[in-house]
Each structure stands twice: as structure tokens, then as C-alpha cells.
């Protein structure tokens, strides 16, 4: 198994933590992982992204230019990374924020209204976990339980009351993707 993912959006949308949680969960399942964030000027007020790689074998380059999967949360990221998904790859995007979607026919594209669904869960900040759930529905690279365990190890104890909400968000994402059409 080798899965190379780009996750991108505005700073504050939980882009880096989405990748980090996924990487941590994969590590808990015994996989090799790298998580490479953007930390430059684009972090300061613009878009943030991270390259997350999961593999059964040792990972050579943590920096890559084409991806098996892109999870994008804003329009600039759609425009930038839509063309960088490998043929037959997967593109999951946040559909309440993104108006113009890649017109590629050689990849699978799913629009998930994650911000809207997060609103319904009364916490807009779990939109990233909803998208993670949707992604895992299509590519079950780690178990949901591992994600929750990762969160419980990464989050300080004072936030542990949010774990059930995060599980709910992941499950919402898993279900949501079955209701949207492949584009």
C-alpha cells in the first residue's frame, strides 16, 4: 500500500490537523508515514496545505508533485491541485465553499457539503473530520477507530469531551459520500 495525498484549504479550516490525524492513525496501524506542511508565506493569511504519505514500506521523498488523492477545501486549492491528481485518482472537495470544480473525466470527483453538515452538528470546526470520513469511505486506508485513538493521543485531555463529536463527524462523512453523485 502506498497512498500519496494532498490536503489543502484556507488556514483555520483544519487542513494540517486533518493530515496529521490521518498520519498518526496510520502510524498506530504500523504503517510508515510522512506529513509535510507548507509553512511559508502562504500560511500567513492564505492557503495551507500538507502532503501526507502512507505506506507499507519506507518512504523515500516526502515531497511529490502528483497525488493519488486530493482533499481540497477552497477554490484556490481546487484550481492548484485538481490538475495534480493522478489518472484514476480521487478528488474530494468541500462543496459549500467551491464553485468551480475540475472538469477532469479521468479521475473520480466527490463534492461533500461538509461545512453545511458540520453546522448541523453545531460545530463548524469538524468539517475537516467529515471530509476525512468521506475520504475513508472511498479509500479505507485506516480504521475509524484508529482515527479516534490518534485524536485521543494528540489532543490534550481537556479536549477529550470532543471525541464523540469527532466520531459523529467521521460517520457523517462516511454516509454523506454515498448520497452524492460521482462527477
Amino acid at each position: 500500500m502506498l497512498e500519496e495525498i494532498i490536503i489543502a484549504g484556507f488556514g483555520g479550516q483544519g487542513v494540517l490537523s486533518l493530515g496529521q490525524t490521518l498520519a498518526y492513525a496510520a502510524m498506530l496501524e504500523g504503517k510508515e508515514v510522512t506529513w509535510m506542511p507548507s509553512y511559508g508565506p502562504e500560511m500567513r493569511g492564505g492557503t495551507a496545505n500538507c502532503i501526507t504519505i502512507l505506506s507499507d514500506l519506507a518512504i523515500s521523498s516526502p515531497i511529490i508533485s502528483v497525488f493519488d488523492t486530493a482533499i481540497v477545501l477552497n477554490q484556490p486549492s481546487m484550481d492548484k491541485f485538481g490538475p495534480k491528481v493522478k489518472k484514476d485518482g480521487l478528488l474530494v472537495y468541500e462543496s459549500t465553499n467551491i464553485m468551480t470544480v475540475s472538469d477532469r473525466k479521468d479521475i473520480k470527483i466527490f463534492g461533500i457539503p461538509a461545512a453545511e453538515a458540520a453546522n448541523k452538528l453545531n460545530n463548524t470546526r469538524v468539517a475537516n473530520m467529515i471530509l476525512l470520513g468521506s475520504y475513508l469511505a472511498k479509500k479505507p486506508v485506516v480504521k475509524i477507530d484508529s482515527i479516534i485513538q490518534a485524536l485521543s493521543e494528540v489532543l490534550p485531555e481537556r479536549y477529550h469531551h470532543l471525541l464523540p463529536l469527532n466520531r459523529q463527524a467521521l460517520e457523517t462523512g462516511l454516509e454523506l459520500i454515498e448520497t452524492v453523485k460521482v462527477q
Partner: protein
Amino acid sequence: MEILETKLMKGNEALAEAAIQAKCDAYFGYPITPQSEVLEYLSREMTVRGGVVLQAESEVASINMIYGAAGAGARVMTTSSSPGISLMQEGLSYIASAQLPCLIVNVNRGGPGLGTIQPSQGDYFQSTKGGGHGDYRLIVLAPNSVQEMADFVFLGFELADKYRNPVLILSDGAIGQMMEKVVFYKRDVVKPEKSWATTGKHPHRERNIITSLFIQPEKMEQVNLSLLKKYKEIEANEVRYEEVNAKDAEFLLVAYGLSSRISHKVVDLARHKGLKLGLLRPITLYPFPTKRIEELVPQLKGAMTVEMNAGQMVEDVRLAVNGKIPVTHYGRMGGIIPSPEEVLEKVEEFISNI
């Protein structure tokens, strides 16, 4: 070794945690991107678990605090990034002359000048050829993973003590910022006795003096000669490198740090296409694996360094090759990281022109 814990950490955090586990007595530093996590982590953790953490007023102050504390026999470390490391060069020259063990970490960013906060390997010359004034060398270790950011702290302190010489870990912004799995092992960290340290005059021994001032030329030359003797010993004993598919290679990439990770992927891609490409990754940049390159030359048709700079290590490769095969360099600057596909294209171009 028995595993203590396995964590997902940034390179900078792993290095900081390793410093605590390696029983570093004191850390002096000044924040600068992309390595501020080291100071943050140590301020939070080391102050509780034992050790001095002090944010100095500048990098000039940090390195001179290192000079003083190392002279008093403490195990000491400072970290910074390129512009800050430039400020430290005077102090480093003094420390090298006074033969004090300490660990310096440069999380390299793009330059010259204040440059950019993005990753670079533009400080190779500064790290390996002196940097400060006078005839001296640092032992330079180049980690290419988060695991090695931790491991080389232990190794760095060990080598610093063994040779009474400053050791530099030359990393870069990407290795510092990226997260990977890192395993910490249960280690018996032993700090050697330092009979030369200025810990107060005891009646049963002569005064210990730490200085870098030797006014008489004859005395100065003796110091120079003893440094030279030490560097020869380091060159004989401490060369470290790693190879990927080098044994049957016809073409060789030479790369360190982040570039070596990218080059590893380039080798995989090239082998897939039937190209006999290999990789030599220097782990110690000083001492440089000159001899190993000499050994490989007869089987090679050409060599290329991949560096995130304008071509610095390529000079050391050319010296080792000594004109026997063509040597070229490919690099990106300004904080831009070359992609494996881009490097492979340059490799193919190079090969077709030989």
C-alpha cells in the same frame, strides 16, 4: 535496543526531545523560523525535566553562552537557522580553537541575507569549510529524516566529547517542519569525565585554562598542528554514508539531507525505466566520503549532485572524482524543493549528453 516510545513528531521536536534524553545540561538559543519549535519544546519540557533553557538576546550571545558553559564542562546545545548561524561564526571559531565539545544545529533556510524561511542547502560551504576564521573544522552530520534528527543528537554529543570538537547538525526547513514516526530507545547515556574543564582550581592539580589566544607564533603553530592531527583522525575514523543501488550503478547521484530523500525516489523511478542509477548519500559532510567516491569511479560513466543550492557539494565530488568522469549539479534555490520527476529529467538529459 529497548523501545521507550514511538511518536509522530516534527523534526525540530524530535531533536529537542533527544537533547533532553541525551542529558543536555543547558540550551541557549534565539527564536528563528524554521526552527523555533526547538526553543518552544525545550522551554516547555526541559525546564521541568531538568536542565537550563535560556533565550539569549541574540545568536551572538547564545554561542558565547555555549562557549562558557562548554568550558565549564556542561553538555550544551544551541540551534538556529542560516542568518542566526552566520552570527555565531566568530564564537564557533573560538570554540573550535579552544577545543570544546558542543552541539550546534542549523535548520537551513534560503539565503543569502535574511533570504526566505523556506528550506535550502545553501549553507554547505559555511558548514564544511570553516565558516568562521582560521584553520578549523566542525564535524558535520546531515540527517535526512525525523528519526535521524533525534539519533544524531546522541551521536553528535558523543563525537563532540570524543574529539573535544564542536559538532554541527546541518538540517533544513523541510526536515525540521515535517512529521514522521520517530522511535526513542532506552539508552545508557554516559557523560565522560572532563578533567580539562574550568570547574574551580583544586589544590591537587594545575589550573585549567581555556583560551583561543596564543600570541607566540611557535605556540600557535603547535595548536594548529594538534588540531590538524585531530582532524586527520576524524577523517580516518568518522566517515559515514549510505548507498542506494550503488553497487552496480553506471551513473551516480550524490545528495544529502532532504535532497537524498528526493534522489532515492529518483533512483527508484530510474531503475523502473532500466537506468542503472545509484545514490551515495553522505551522512557526514565533514569528514566527506571522498574515498568511497574514488572507489566507485571506475564503474561510473558520470555523477550528478542534487542540492538545494547553486552547486556547493559538487566541488567536493569533483575533487574526489579528480577529472576521471563528468560531474554535474542540479539544484533549485530560493526555498524551492525539486520534484523527483524534475530531477529524473535532468539525469536523463545529463546521460544523453555524455
